[in-house]
């Protein structure tokens, strides 16, 4: 079988060969995925089940997900590398973890489902790059960043703004405040 992608675990006990292209490519931040994926999201490429050939011994673990489906995941029992997963609702698909897929320049799968970058939780950034060929997106220019690193152009309320009265002598500083100035300041305080 000519395989489009190959892969395996860290110790080499298990090898994977995938024929054809993945059907779905997604990133999952659920709590269960974060437990097995060392804190970050699991990056998943779902292939047709019959397209995936596996050699070696696999360990498995199954649990009932929040959706009510039973999720079975397979890993290498000698090094713990997460390899594949399957939902009871979709037995025709087998999800392969990105990390287990060998790099192949220009053909490695990547999450792609709409161009958004969102900050979630306290530190993580979720990203889907919509373009297959794009490199890493340019960092947000400094002048557009707010103090949390987000894009202040799209903030509901500006978290930092130019306060011209601060350039005046102290006697004039407290004269004029913009509307909701106290509320803005309260938000600033609670965020820091």
């Amino acid at each position: 079988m000519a395989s489009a992608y190959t892969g395996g675990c860290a110790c080499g006990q298990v090898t994977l060969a995938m024929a054809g292209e993945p059907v779905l490519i997604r990133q999952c931040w659920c709590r269960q995925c974060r437990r097995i994926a060392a804190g970050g999201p699991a990056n998943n490429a779902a292939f047709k089940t019959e397209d995936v050939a596996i050699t070696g011994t696999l360990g498995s673990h199954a649990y009932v997900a929040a959706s009510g489906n039973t999720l079975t995941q397979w890993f290498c029992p000698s090094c713990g590398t997460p390899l594949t997963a399957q939902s009871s609702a979709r037995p025709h698909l087998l999800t392969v973890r990105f990390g287990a897929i060998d790099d192949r320049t220009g053909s490695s799968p990547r999450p792609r489902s709409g161009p958004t970058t969102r900050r979630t939780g306290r530190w993580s950034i979720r990203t889907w790059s919509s373009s297959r060929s794009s490199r890493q997106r340019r960092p947000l220019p400094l002048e557009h960043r707010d103090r949390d690193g987000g894009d202040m152009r799209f903030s509901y309320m500006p978290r930092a703004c130019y306060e011209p009265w601060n350039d005046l002598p102290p006697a004039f500083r407290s004269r004029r405040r913009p509307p909701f100035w106290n509320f803005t300041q309260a938000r600033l305080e609670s965020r820091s």
Partner: protein
Amino acid sequence: MLMTHTGKCLCGQVRFTIDADPIGARMCWCRDCQRIASGSATVNVLFPEEAVRYEGEMGVFRMIADSGNEVARGFCTGCGAQMYSRTVVPGGLPIRIRAGTLDDPDLIAPTAILWAGSVPAWAELDPNLPQHGKGPDSPVIETYS
């Protein structure tokens, strides 16, 4: 304030308690970490090694990391969850607990990105964090134009 931090693997076979506060947290994008972290970086919280107590059966995988250090990686034999990474040679380094196994994965935010040189093209990094090309002692990559 000293607190006790707890955590477990996905299936509950391995549990641990930590009687110390975290020393720091970092993301590692080395190719080895991507392989065991389902394609993402490992998010590692550093603790003094003697403060961590594990219960339950764990497998240990030893390897020479990209840095040349010999590391031991603990994982749950029941569900494959990655639990920790410990540097065997050289000794004396803090143990790195995988953030996902902590009951409070938001305990501490990562403050640096390691091995940014091997980040896949689709990943987007937090522009506010220093990005080291290799390990923590390697120079920071200048990312801003």
